[in-house]
């Protein structure tokens, strides 16, 4: 009787599942093909999907933060302080949100440069490329409007940068600033809040529907490891609250978040604000937008297109250099503020120009002189090894048991640490547990692949 009952329930569930799937076939969801790979792939194939995953993580944690955040000039900082110190799990949610934002930007940049070097924009992917660049810019704006909301000294510095840049646009600048930012700080914080939680995410979702390809690769182990990485980084470096902004107290010296320091370095060179802060970054973006139309070479590999590769390396090096330079502030506290912040424009722009020249030259030298030799050597002594990774069934069972045991221990340890207010250790062990979970799914995949043989 009991066995039969089980069977009936199983059949009922299967019927229900089939019924739902059958109806969903009528929807747009089945236009997307979600591929779950059967073996370990290079993450380069689905960096965009990983970026999307961090976007979803940010959406979920962002909603949770929005329950407690108050977008007003008097309450913004204290409400974030409340989330950080009093609200249950607030510190963990806030740290995941912060580090996932960093991870999303890193992954977006990584994704961009991988697609650039591998020439993926060629095969009728121009629209995907252009919408990708627009999504990237929106991601940057989303991160920028987000971290100002705390209204600490770093946030206010970024608000000032943004406001002065908007104002610096000739003719329409003042009107634009009054539309986007309103008048004064109390308006700005509400405007940024609405941009951050409504306008920009909505635009991103709309543009993503044009950007996402029809085949999406979703690899659960890698996603679990990415989540683990975010949690481990959050545990190693919990984001500080900073000093709250008080209009009566002049701020100390701070630098903005890492994705704006490049812009900050350009601004501190002292040349015209509009040229340094608006025109040069826009040129940078326009260059990326035009790449598919500049690059007419049929070949997709990077060493056949030395100019684009060289410019790509130059772009990456410029991002790295301006970002780090933006963090530099003369440590001598006795000299004047303007003097401490100043960057010598001649030195700065000459180094940027040298980087471009050196990258292009290096790229040409590689593709003309070095690459042919290397490929000659490689083809001459190329031995194709057909590698097959097999594990005995017993070993897999032992590994699975060990991984589950470690995971259980880490989870208990994490909960215990949270109860004892050791939030760092709690986040690190939670991240480690998630990483091991990813390893477990990967083992299951190897196992099922071997079963299939």
């Amino acid at each position, binding site marked *: 009787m009991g066995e039969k009952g089980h069977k009936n329930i199983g059949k009922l569930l299967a019927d229900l599942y089939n019924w739902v799937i059958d109806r969903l076939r009528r929807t747009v969801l089945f236009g997307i093909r979600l591929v779950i790979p059967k073996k370990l792939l290079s993450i380069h194939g689905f960096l965009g999907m990983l970026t999307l995953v961090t976007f979803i993580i940010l959406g979920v944690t962002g909603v949770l933060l929005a329950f407690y955040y108050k977008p007003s000039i008097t309450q913004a900082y204290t409400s974030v302080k409340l989330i950080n110190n009093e609200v249950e799990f607030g510190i963990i949610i806030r740290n995941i949100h912060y580090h996932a934002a960093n991870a999303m930007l890193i992954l977006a940049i990584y994704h961009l440069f*991988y697609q650039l*070097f*591998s020439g993926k924009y060629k095969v009728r992917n121009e629209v995907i490329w252009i919408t990708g660049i627009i999504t990237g810019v929106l991601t940057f704006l989303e991160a920028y409007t987000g971290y100002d909301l705390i209204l600490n000294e770093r946030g206010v510095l970024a608000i000032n940068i943004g406001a002065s840049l908007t104002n610096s646009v000739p003719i329409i600048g003042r009107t634009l600033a009054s539309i986007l930012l309103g008048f004064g700080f109390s308006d700005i914080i509400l405007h940024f809040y609405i941009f951050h939680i409504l306008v920009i995410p909505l635009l991103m979702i709309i543009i993503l529907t044009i950007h996402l390809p029809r085949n999406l690769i979703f690899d659960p182990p890698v996603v679990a490891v990415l989540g683990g990485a975010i949690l481990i980084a959050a545990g190693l470096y919990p984001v500080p609250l900073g000093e709250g902004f008080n209009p009566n107290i*002049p701020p100390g*010296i701070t630098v903005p978040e890492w994705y704006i320091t490049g812009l900050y370095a350009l601004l501190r060179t002292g040349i015209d604000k509009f040229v340094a802060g608006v025109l040069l970054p826009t040129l940078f973006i326009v260059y990326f937008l035009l790449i598919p139309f500049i690059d007419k070479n049929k070949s997709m590999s990077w060493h056949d297109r030395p100019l684009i590769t060289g410019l790509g390396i130059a772009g990456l090096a410029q991002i790295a250099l301006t970002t780090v330079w933006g963090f530099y502030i003369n*440590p001598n506290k006795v000299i004047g503020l303007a003097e401490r912040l100043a960057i010598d424009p001649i030195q700065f722009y000459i180094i940027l120009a040298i980087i471009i020249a050196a990258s292009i030259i290096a790229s040409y030298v590689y593709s003309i002189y070095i690459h042919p030799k290397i490929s000659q050597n490689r083809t001459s002594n190329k031995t194709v090894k057909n590698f097959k990774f097999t594990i005995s069934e017993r070993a897999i069972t032992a590994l699975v048991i060990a991984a589950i045991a470690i995971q259980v221990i880490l989870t208990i340890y994490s909960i215990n640490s949270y109860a004892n207010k050791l939030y760092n250790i709690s986040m690190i062990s939670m991240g480690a547990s998630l990483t091991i979970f990813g390893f477990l799914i990967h083992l299951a995949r190897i196992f099922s692949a071997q079963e299939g043989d």
Partner: protein
Amino acid sequence: MDRGMYISSHLLILFGIIGTWLSLYSNISDSFKELAGVSILLIVLGLMTLPVALLKNGPPNLKQLSPTAGVLIIGVILIGLPIFTGPPRVVESGRIINITLISTEWAFNQTNPTIQVELGDRVRITLINNGTITHSIEVVGLGPPSPKINPGENITIEFVATKEGTFDYICPIPGHAEFGMHGKFIVTSRTK
């Protein structure tokens, strides 16, 4: 091994190591410490993609592993070594030096007196703000700045003089040190 991922995971780790080193140990600028968050994320992401890159089509050979070993050794040297070879810890002398400074515009105690302590002394500076605007106190190089205080309030900072030499004590609020709120803080070697 996957060549593209191999290169990019090494780049991620290398960028992360340089950023972490700048944020933790370099004396180039105080503001580099804000690089820590993203640098650590870069290292963790790089370390987590490294096994995928190395193991994708079978175990790597020794020659392929040497750049990985190089990057990891650079990391250990840059980040790990300063922990062991950093300046020797100064044993506290047991003395507690209490100093009171009164801030007005634009000087401490009207004349910015020179303060002299010995290596290993525990220094307690109480700042009383008798001015008309906000002030603060920092002994540059020996400790973090105090929180800013409004007129009429006071605050105490405490630190151990762990380095010999001549330092500046200043009001770290921008502009104030230039207007005159800075004096000398001398740490001499221990007399006995």
